[in-house]
Structure formats: structure tokens, C-alpha cells
């Protein structure tokens, strides 16, 4: 997912669908769609990286391209 400066990638192969990323995203950027997280409001992403750091499965990467 692209949003200007941020790119949120979900590794579905590694994701175990715990939902932590979506539940604790401060801007509600992520939501679970059929169990897997998706960046439904990428334009709101502030690049705090909490979803990536809190993902127990190494399944999220947030790239801030600058």
C-alpha cells in the first residue's frame, strides 16, 4: 500500500492473524479483512511503526521513503 511517503507491507505467509496490529494502531489505519490486516486508511498513517514493532510474526513492514 502506498501513501505518499509510507508503504505498509503485510507478509501473509508469516502472519498468524492475532489482530494486535489493527487493534492498537493509533490512527486506525489497519483493519482485519478476512482475518488478515489491511491498510484500509493508508493516507492516515503517521509512520509511528508501532504495528511493525508490535507484530509478533515479523509480518509487517512500514517503509518511510524520504
Amino acid at each position, binding site marked *: 500500500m502506498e501513501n505518499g511517503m509510507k508503504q505498509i507491507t503485510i507478509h501473509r*505467509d*508469516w*502472519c*498468524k*492473524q*492475532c*489482530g*494486535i496490529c489493527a*487493534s*492498537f494502531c493509533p490512527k486506525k489505519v489497519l483493519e482485519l479483512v478476512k482475518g488478515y490486516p489491511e491498510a484500509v486508511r493508508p493516507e492516515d498513517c503517521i509512520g509511528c511503526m*508501532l504495528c511493525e*514493532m*508490535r*507484530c*509478533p*510474526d*515479523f509480518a509487517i513492514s512500514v517503509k518511510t521513503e524520504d
Partner: protein
Amino acid sequence: MLQDYLLEENLPHFWCAGCGSGIVLQSLLRNIDKQGWKREDTVVVTGIGCWGKADDYIKTNTFHGTHGRALAFSTGIKLANPDLHVFTLMGDGDGITIGGNHLIHAARRNIDLVAIMVNNLNYGMTGGQYSGTTPRDAITKTSPYGHIETGFDVCRVVQAAGGSFVARGTVYDVVQLNKLIEQAIAHKGFSFVEVISPCPTHFGRSNHMAAAVEMMRWIKEQTVPLARAASMSPQELEGKFVTGVFENSQREDYSTAYQRVVDRLKGEAG
């Protein structure tokens, strides 16, 4: 780069959905990566238990031994070659229950290493029995009527034993966790970080928090930063996880003290 230290070929990992071990591993590997060390100079020593599987995903030297003895293996490694960067990963079973004796003595000796104890409040690998940190009244497979023992405040134990860096964080507050591990690495001497971590599969399921998110929220709600804890009564702090740095003091580490003896003997002989 995380990839320089993470054995991606072994992912997805073995841990359950919502287990906090992966969060701690990520924080640890990012911090190791920042140090700019050579990978061959780092040794990660693990115990047995869920967190004891962490070495399967790490690209440095690793040592996987027996339950509870990780610090004793680490002591041998560090004393044999003090130039090595040694990390000791233990669960609450390893760290304070079966291996509590090694913990207090490694702290007392001030062995220069980083010990990270992931505390998920029960034995996850064997199916959710109580450990030395299981809180009073908690339900586990072996405390089906409510736990009648009191869990250790592990940081107080390590502090009393002489650990020169002692801290507690949670996998909820990852920003703080990153900083605590960073400080632990920077500290010379025995550096101990306890990380409160969810086990939704066992502890959570037995205590009305089967969903990973529920357990994470519970940890968040039970957390009290050290500064706030200072103004709270013991009753108010009952069952809370006080987070922060409890000890950060300078004391000569074991290898340095030992080398002084060796040098003195050399001087006397020569």
C-alpha cells in the same frame, strides 16, 4: 538491517498467534543490529521453553542447552572469552523458577552480559502450568482452583542479588522496550530486562483472555510506570506490572576483576 540477524528461512516461527516472544525478538535483533558488531562476536544462549526457541531464528552464534541453565552456560562462555557479546534468553520457568539459583549468582558476580527474561506468567511449552511468576488467584492447568502462591517480583530479586542494570518492560510498550534493551546493551555488567508478555493460548484462555488482543489490553491496563508507582500504596500496586529502570549503577564486572588478579600475578612473577 533486521534481515542481517533474523533467520528468515525459518519463518513463520513456531510461536502461537499473539505470543509476545516475536515482539521481544524483533526488539532484541534491531538493537543488536545497531551496535555495528561483527556477527561472529555475538553469542545468544537460550534455555528451554517457548522463548527458548528464539535461537532458531537468530543468525549469530547460538547455544541451546537445558532448562534453567542458560546463565550458567553463558557464564562459561563469557569468562572463557570476555570479548564476546553474550545474550541470555530465558523464560520465567528458566529464569526464576528452575534456574533461580543461577540468576541470583550471575547477578551477584556481575557477569557482563545481557539477560532477557520473557515473563508470560506460566509454562507455555508444556501446556499452561503455573511458574514462579504466576500471580495469586490465577487459573492454570495445575492451579485449577486459583493459585495460592505469590509470584516473584523478579526485578526486586535481581536487584537485591546485585544486578547492576535491572529493568522491566512489556511487549505492549515497544518503544520503551527498545530503549530498555538498548540501555542494557550499553551497560557494563549484569544487565537484566524482564519483559511482560502475553500467552493467550494458555494463560489467557484460562483467565478469560483467550484473544491475543484482550491479553495485550490487560497487560496495558496492569502496567504502572515506575514514576507513578512511587505514589501508590502496596495495596494499589498488587498485581500490577511496574515498568522502568530499577537499577543502573556501575560496579566492576567479573571478568575485569578476574583479569586484575591475573595481571597482578604476572607482575609478581615477572
